[in-house]
């Protein structure tokens, strides 16, 4: 599963990455996690509010740290 976290390096972006890593590890789901920090690349997804999360090329979240439940749903899909 290819997961990108969009954000310019704010605390919420770091928390989002850490939370996804933690849950993926706990569930044994292999993920490729990438940070996208360049504004132009972030805006290429049309995301105004960060952090944004892109899974397999699709934006699934924008703005604020996603909830644990939400991440678990993504990883179960």
């Amino acid at each position, binding site marked *: 599963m290819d997961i990108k976290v969009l954000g310019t390096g704010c605390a919420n972006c770091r928390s989002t990455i850490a939370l996804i890593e933690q849950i993926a590890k706990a569930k044994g789901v292999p993920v490729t996690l990438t940070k996208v920090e360049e*504004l*132009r690349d972030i805006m290429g997804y049309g995301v*105004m509010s960060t952090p944004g999360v892109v899974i397999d090329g699709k934006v699934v979240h924008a703005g604020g740290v996603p909830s644990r439940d939400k991440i678990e749903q993504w990883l179960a899909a």
Partner: protein
Amino acid sequence: MNERVDLSQVREVCPTTTRRLLDEGALMVDVRELDEVAQVAFDVPGVLLMPMSELEQRFAELPRDRDLVLVCREGERSLKAASFLKYQRYARVASMEGGLFKWARKGFPIKGAQPAPAATATAAGCSCAAPGSGRCC
């Protein structure tokens, strides 16, 4: 949700170029929040206020057949807003680098309190096509 688009670089223009573009018919779009505008505003006829917090809902109000120069306090938010408009397929978009700080430092007209001083502009920091030409920065 959104599809990915390869965006081209947003054009950044200095305050002097911005004034020229305005003279030529461009529209200035201030993306600062209204409480910021209440303290100090660009004294430019026809400036359109579209705070960042409303941009996603209201961007369709912006004309596509006119040059738009987005402005903010320091040039960071306007760059982001301009990128968003590019994503929304606005072709005639630029961001004013340095924002209100640089605009005021150049002595260009503002309404309200003088903004707090920021770092001094240098020729090296100029984004104009022809720095040192005497027409810019």
